[in-house]
């Protein structure tokens, strides 16, 4: 079930100079909304930039949905101009989302704004049954980590530049966590180079993770084929999967990173 239309912006919250969040009304026609899924949002009321922007759900409430958005270019910058009470045109939920049924011990690894969809994931898991370890990486000052702190048995917060935190990339603590723990599932979302180097690590250890990936999108529903993801097909072949429809979650052992 997919919704196409306008919803009300209930709350806009400025997180820091680069990031903000929207809480919108959740409509019945949207049906189930899963962590890892995304919506395609109009950046402006005047329709410019023209294409909608894919944004993951960072929290799904009973009557609300939260998006956490980083200002990157013209579109995300313009989005910040929506006022509370105004309507935003969107399409969704889209994509496959995370698979998380039945896992009891998981590792979540997020980089930058990639932490947002993982927040939606951990908050939808029952505290009593799932043990969560978290590794969060930031360029500068960390943000939206409170829920991870509250919910994780182990947590490591990294920053490239803020020396109140452990300095470095997420790959280091992940490697040592993998030495000492065995996880039912690993979830990763973050910038391309991070996904790539973690995938190398996972492959070298023969384990697999769920990667939430990104590509420029147009339709967002699988019809136009612009959002390609190179995936394995057979033993030596490849195929071009659709990031928006076959993903954005792919298993790390399916993806071919060749650039």
């Amino acid at each position: 079930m997919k919704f196409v239309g306008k919803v009300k912006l209930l709350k806009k919250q400025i997180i820091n100079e680069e990031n903000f969040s929207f809480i919108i009304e959740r409509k019945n026609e949207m049906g189930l909304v899963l962590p890892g899924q995304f919506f395609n949002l109009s950046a402006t009321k005047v329709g410019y930039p023209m294409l909608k922007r894919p944004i993951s759900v960072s929290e799904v409430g009973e009557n609300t949905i939260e998006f956490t958005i980083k200002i990157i270019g013209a579109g995300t910058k313009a989005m910040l101009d929506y006022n509370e009470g105004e309507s935003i045109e969107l399409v969704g939920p889209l994509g496959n989302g995370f698979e998380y049924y039945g896992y009891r011990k998981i590792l979540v690894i997020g980089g930058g704004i990639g932490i947002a969809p993982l927040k939606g994931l951990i908050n939808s898991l029952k505290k009593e049954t799932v043990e969560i370890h978290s590794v969060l990486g930031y360029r500068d000052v960390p943000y939206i980590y409170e829920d991870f702190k509250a919910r994780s048995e182990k947590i490591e917060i990294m920053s490239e530049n803020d020396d109140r935190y452990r300095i470095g990339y997420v790959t280091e603590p992940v490697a040592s966590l993998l030495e000492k723990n065995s996880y039912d599932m690993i979830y990763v979302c973050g910038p391309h180079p991070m996904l790539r180097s973690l995938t190398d690590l996972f492959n070298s250890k023969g384990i697999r993770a769920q990667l939430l990936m990104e590509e420029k999108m147009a339709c967002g529903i699988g019809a136009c084929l612009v959002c390609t993801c190179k995936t394995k097909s057979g033993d030596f072949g490849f195929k071009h999967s659709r990031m928006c429809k076959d993903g954005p979650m792919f298993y790390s052992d399916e993806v071919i990173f060749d650039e």
Partner: protein
Amino acid sequence: MNKLKMKVDLNGLILNNPVTVASGTYGFGREYSELIDLNQIGAISVKGLTLEPREGNEGRRMVETPMGMINSVGLQNPGVHYFIENEIEFLRQFDTKIIANINGNTIEEYCEMARILSAEDVDSIELNISCPNVKNGGLAFGTDSLVVREVVAKVRKASKKHLIVKLSPNVTDIKTIAKIVEEEGADCISLINTMAGMAIDIHGRKPFLRRGSGGLSGPAIKPIALKMVYDVHSVVNIPVLGMGGIANATDALEFILAGASAIAIGTANFSNPYAPIEIKKGIEDYMRHYGEVDINTLIGNLRI
């Protein structure tokens, strides 16, 4: 509320209404069928088919530009045989016409596909002559008058199906090409395909698209498309299926007044999945407002 006559006749291909969707923007209809009622669409031109399945170009395949986008999907498709076996039946559930968009590397490939599709349950074949001609250094078939004449003539012979020829806009003189297409027996002309375009990542110092350049579509090209539709309509007698940047009912009516018997929506589906339905309704509202009862009276009805 009067009943409006919305049926249009593209020279044998009769559409319930003039609003169709453009090849490559609608897949085989499956994804959009979850969002809108395909029965309301006059025709669906399916994703460009090739003889063999193709994986298309490597990513990145798309970049947005001011009111437009450039794509280089590279004709990723499951091949004509898969289409016949797995997609036609699905589309036939709906009260819409099926246009099979075909693409070849050689004239022989075009003919072969036309022959294969002649026996199948599709309503029309759309010959996309914007493809690079491998025998001719990769220049598009559609940009050389002699090649256009040959490919249209041969495909016409290969199939008795309703035949649409889709023109490339990247030419000096689209009127001459259109006249050749008519002379060689096409039933209808569709235009425009995408325009050659490029965008550069100044930080990476390389084109955004892996292939360097691609095809520009969307509202940005609408004025160019409209002029070409007007020009082509003024020199041929076969009907024109107009497209290029149509995003709302006003745009669609501009094309119809310029001479298009039907219109196709491409890129606008991405920004607004309801575009075909809203545009159909907008055309009807306009007709009621001006007391027009038959869409056919609007076609080419410009006071110049």
